[in-house]
């Protein structure tokens, strides 16, 4: 067993670190204050090939492996959670089209999504439905050779600037995914402001009022919107959020190391006080553990191993909680300064809380991981029985 990044992955990691430090981190506070990302951020990110970088080169992308993808999302997440949110939602929409779209949909949208000419968004949550995909109320009923959409989608990340939306609706009672262009008549977008964290994520409320779309805008088949399109997208989103959470935890750690080195109390640097060392130790350990879980999930994704589903749930669950603990302790270490926007840790805390909620809340992860754990337990019991039976036959 070898747990080490390849030379190419290490090189990419360095590239991401420098890029995030130079082009993203300096704008993070402004993104948070102004509740929007800077106007040229999409262009800057796209120029680096960081939008949907997993697409094959044929689509003008980088054909990036998922471990490297995780490193990218860690570094961007460390610099600014709102920008990481942009990558997450854009990539979820892009993957949906790449994996489940028709040839025509791929040809139309993937080149634009890969270059950032168009931003994609995933429209799943509703005023009355979030993690419960089967509870969605938006309808997309057949009408002539197309569909008519009715309903609302809420908390849609980067809905304010997205040009194409992957919308989950019920079509004759079956969960179904549709592509909806921003300029469709009957489709309106209302910005949502004053969120607690990731405030630059430009959330929106989407309203569909007799919004007619052509039949060719259906993604995958009717009835496969949840089990195929949404789950594929959420699997990637969960991984991105997990890696972004590692980034937040690392940012907390580094902020605390800097602060406790400079700050002096009772005649010595804060870092020399043992109770501070305990908090720093927890941050170091939990960040490292979260990072390893993310790498493992990325590795399984690269191997196309079905275990990647469980591992991604575990990584997201652990990393988002580790980020929250790190942020709470980072604010504690910074004292009153930590409660002020003069220091970034209060933003990290607000952003970390969001990580525990999006792409499946902590409680949803707990239910799912437990279920998957019992599934593995049953499997190992069965294998044991089979081995015993085989041995008895010999």
């Amino acid at each position, binding site marked *: 067993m070898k747990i080490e990044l390849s030379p190419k992955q290490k090189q990419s990691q360095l590239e991401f670190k420098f890029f995030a430090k130079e082009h993203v981190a300096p704008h993070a506070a402004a993104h948070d204050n102004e509740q929007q990302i800077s106007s040229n951020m999409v262009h800057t990110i796209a120029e680096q090939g960081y939008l949907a970088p997993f697409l094959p080169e044929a689509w003008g992308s980088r054909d990036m492996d998922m471990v490297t993808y995780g490193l990218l999302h860690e570094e961007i997440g460390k610099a600014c959670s709102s920008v990481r949110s942009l990558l997450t939602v854009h990539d979820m929409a892009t993957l949906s089209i790449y994996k489940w779209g028709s040839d025509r949909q791929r040809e139309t949208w993937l080149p634009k999504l890969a270059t950032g000419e168009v931003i994609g968004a995933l429209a799943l949550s509703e005023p009355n439905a979030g993690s419960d995909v089967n509870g969605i109320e938006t309808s997309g009923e057949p009408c002539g050779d197309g569909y008519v959409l009715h309903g609302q989608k809420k908390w849609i990340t980067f809905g304010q600037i997205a040009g194409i939306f992957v919308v989950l609706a019920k079509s004759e009672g079956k969960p179904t995914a549709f592509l909806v262009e921003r300029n469709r008549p009957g489709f309106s977008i209302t910005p949502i402001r004053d969120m607690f964290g990731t405030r630059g994520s430009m959330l929106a409320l989407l309203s569909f009022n007799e919004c007619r779309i052509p039949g060719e805008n259906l993604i995958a088949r009717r009835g*496969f919107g949840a089990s195929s399109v949404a789950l594929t997208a959420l699997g990637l989103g969960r991984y991105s959020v997990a890696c972004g959470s590692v980034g937040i935890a690392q940012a907390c750690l580094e902020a605390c190391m800097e602060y406790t080195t400079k700050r002096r109390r009772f005649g010595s640097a804060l870092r020399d006080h043992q109770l501070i060392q305990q908090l720093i130790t927890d941050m170091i350990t939990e960040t490292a553990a979260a990072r390893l879980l993310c790498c493992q999930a990325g590795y399984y994704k690269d191997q*196309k191993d079905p275990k990647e589903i469980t591992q991604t749930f575990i990584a997201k669950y652990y990393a988002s909680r580790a980020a929250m603990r790190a942020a709470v302790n980072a604010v504690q270490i910074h004292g009153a300064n930590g409660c002020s926007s003069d220091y970034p840790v209060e933003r990290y805390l607000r952003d970390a809380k969001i990580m525990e909620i999006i792409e499946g809340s902590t409680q949803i992860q707990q239910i799912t991981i437990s279920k998957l754990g019992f599934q593995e337990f049953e499997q190992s019991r*069965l294998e044991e029985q089979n081995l015993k039976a085989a041995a008895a036959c010999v």
Partner: protein
Amino acid sequence: MDYKNKIRGFFSRFFRTNDLKDGDDIFAQGFVNSLFAMQLVGWLEKEFEIAIKDEDLDIKNFNSIDAIAGLIGRKTGSVVEV
């Protein structure tokens, strides 16, 4: 036939297959949830080096061991006895 044994082996990770016949509808028997469906797609793509695309998304392609073996056969260009 090897396909079918492999599929049965995969199924056995999730539910007991002792009484499951190759033609039994796994949807009708309530074995399938969306997470299982995703794991099945991921496993099929890796195990048989095929890409499941939107045109393959038909319940008839996934509702039994026979159906899945048939899908693999069509995707890989091999003949599967049903």
